[in-house]
């Protein structure tokens, strides 16, 4: 018996095969239909952009593979995505990340709509304008209208670029919940009870970059979110993971500031780098639950209900079991087609429900899509608007 591999197929063929597999799985589980449903009046929508639209983007660093999600064995790990969200969503099953497969640089590429090429472990701003700068400058939105909640200190500069036409003053506020919790604990709380929430990065367990950028400090957070340090730490005590802390902060932001553009990057799944499969599965299950919680929070909040589109996408995939150059789920180092091919789920009042789009799209297509949604011009983005959702 020989281990089969994909060597004979091109990356494009493999991506198509992955996409087809996802579509067939979703059709079997949720009865999702094909994109042919788009050939109707809805395709002409989008010229008049209502001013009160909101968008929430959830990316997760540490992509989950289909084996553990959109395949029969993975079904048990994503009950909320499959049973609650997919039936309400347009699902793009063939989203390719053609850039560098490191979480900060990849997330920055999604944020700018252009494949960034900086060192993944450097504390630098993206070279290209971020979606927040397009949004705020073109639409003259205040600083309180665009926020990022990011998982690790390395993401401190993701809120605004080094581009001279945009840059300082036009970016989003960046909240690093773990940084805030560290600061809160230094004020005298019992630190040992919170250590599980402070893990910073899984790509290299020892990565702890020097902080730089326009991240929010503890006193500012307390003021903005009307949240005392004691309340913050008391709530954190009951959370099991850093991503739960991020979602808690995101919900506070929604409640207090109701930003129109909120970007949340989850990271628990990337525990896979430790090689412990059970922890990776735990991360997937938690992410599944948190995505559903966020969507439920949207529906319950009058500031968001019926005017919010939510985009959920992993930044990229993980290595396949088949590629001998990798070690399966543990890393995303081979650059093979499976580690580059991922998906995007879009939910909202104007988005077609329970539909699968299997044409190829790029991770960089999100920013121009948000541009079409809000009415700004992502002029330096390399991506293209995803017409099926906007």
């Amino acid at each position, binding site marked *: *018996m020989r281990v089969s591999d994909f060597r004979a197929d091109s990356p494009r063929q493999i991506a198509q095969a992955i996409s087809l597999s996802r579509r067939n799985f979703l059709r079997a589980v949720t009865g999702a239909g094909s994109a042919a449903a788009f050939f109707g009046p809805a395709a002409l929508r989008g010229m008049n952009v209502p001013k009160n639209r909101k968008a929430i983007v959830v990316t997760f660093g540490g992509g989950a593979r289909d084996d553990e999600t959109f395949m029969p*064995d993975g079904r048990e790990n994503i009950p909320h995505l499959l049973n609650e969200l997919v039936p309400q969503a347009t699902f793009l099953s063939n989203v390719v990340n053609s850039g560098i497969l490191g979480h900060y640089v990849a997330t920055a590429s999604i944020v700018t709509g252009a494949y960034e090429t900086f060192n993944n472990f450097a504390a630098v701003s993206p070279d290209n304008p971020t979606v927040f700068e397009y949004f705020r400058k073109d639409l003259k939105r205040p600083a309180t209208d665009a926020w990022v909640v990011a998982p690790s200190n390395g993401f401190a500069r993701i809120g605004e670029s080094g581009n001279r036409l945009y840059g300082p003053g036009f970016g989003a506020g960046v909240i690093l919940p773990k940084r805030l919790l560290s600061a809160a604990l230094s004020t005298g709380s019992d630190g040992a009870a919170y250590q599980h929430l*402070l893990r910073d990065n899984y790509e290299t367990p020892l990565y702890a970059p020097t902080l730089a950028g326009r991240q929010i400090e503890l006193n500012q957070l307390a003021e903005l979110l009307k949240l005392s340090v004691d309340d913050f730490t008391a709530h954190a005590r009951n959370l099991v993971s850093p991503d739960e802390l991020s979602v808690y902060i995101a919900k506070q932001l929604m409640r207090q500031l109701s930003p129109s553009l909120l970007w949340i990057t989850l990271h628990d799944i990337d525990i896979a780098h430790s090689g412990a*499969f059970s922890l990776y599965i735990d991360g997937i299950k938690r992410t599944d639950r948190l995505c559903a919680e966020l969507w439920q929070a949207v529906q319950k909040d009058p500031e968001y209900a019926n005017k919010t589109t939510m985009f959920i996408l992993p930044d990229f995939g993980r290595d396949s079991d088949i590629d001998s150059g990798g*070690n399966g789920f543990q890393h995303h180092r081979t650059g093979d087609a499976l580690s580059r091919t991922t998906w995007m789920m879009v939910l909202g009042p104007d988005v077609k429900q329970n539909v699968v789009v299997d044409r190829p799209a790029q991770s960089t297509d999100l920013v121009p899509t948000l541009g079409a949604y809000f009415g700004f011009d992502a002029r330096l983005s390399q991506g293209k608007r995803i017409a099926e959702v906007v």
Partner: protein
Amino acid sequence: MLPDQLTPESFAAYPPQARELATRQIAILRRLPLAFVPLLLRELSVYDWKFPAERIDLERQFAYLAGLSPGQFQAAMSAFVGLKVTRELEKVDWVNSPAVFSEQFSAHLWTTHQIDAFRAAAVVYVRKSSSSAPDPPMPTHRLGIAAIGQGVTRNDYLLFRKLRPKGVYYTQVKHTGGAKVLLDAVRSRAEAHPVPYAHWYIDGAAPLAEAKGVTRVSYDGLSSPRTLLQSRMQRTYEAPVFDPEAFRTMMAQIGPAEVGLNSGDGALNRFQLSLLTEGSGTQVFSTTFVQWAAREALRRAQPLTLFVRFAPRQREKQMNELLAEHQRPPDLDVQGSLIDGDMGAYYTWLNQQRLPGEEKSAFLAWFEDHGEAVVIAPGLERGEHSATPVELGDLVARIA
């Protein structure tokens, strides 16, 4: 420096056998492009500590390259020649520090979007060189054994879900003698086929008794080197500024003697050190250690027999607590370790099937101290379920 400037003196710092091989093959090395030769030297420079299977592979690569006509040689290297390499990379001491070059070259390939082209070129090269000469005959078929779930009393997780379709799933396995029965089977094969580094036993905790002719590696056996490495890692972790690339280079430059691995077997010492310095998670999670050690043993030593025994790993905690494992009795995650071991057993089977002779290979995975096992072997039906009572010893004897 460019490859055509290589001289025998370039290899003066190499250990004796590596120096001899490099000098003997210098004509070929001079003809190779810069995007290729440091990667070959990375393997060659540690030739003295390579396992026999790795030495055969290196010699085969040189024989393959030497056998190509000038036109074929050019064609074989054209994809590597087409990769753009910077002046800065040329200045790296890639003869004596090929790992440093490799690290920087890899980052360069990603940044310049050349990684896919490199990957494709590497796959073609490996396939052609591997098929250029037949594999040496094997004295017997390969046998892989995995014991998982040590310490688990009750389980709701669907075990062996990926392995069951490949063979027979037994649910009434009597396990008189326990894991020792499996080690005895390994010992018997080692006695029957006494080949260096051909029979391995890897344990995630304290190992069972030593067996003659069996290469033994264990998580507990490496406790002292792990403690020393963990201390270094913890200091780095707690430093205010951290450069991950410099850290990786530092880890790669640690010698076996620095962490107390200075007993007689140089190849095994280097192998064990590499598990801790190149593996991710191997320093803190015993399940990861066993899975990675099995992968590396199969990839590098190509053993005839491999027995891996997963043990409970410590529970997930903040990194500095994980690194302080040696300072306190670890809090164990027994159930999570069962799931880790289940996937680890599947990966071990997959990696065994990547080796020559895969059509005759056999594999046994057993839920330790429980009645569940899967056996995969030629002649056995796939996807079958057997509820007939059977002794573990009989089961392994059938495929050994």
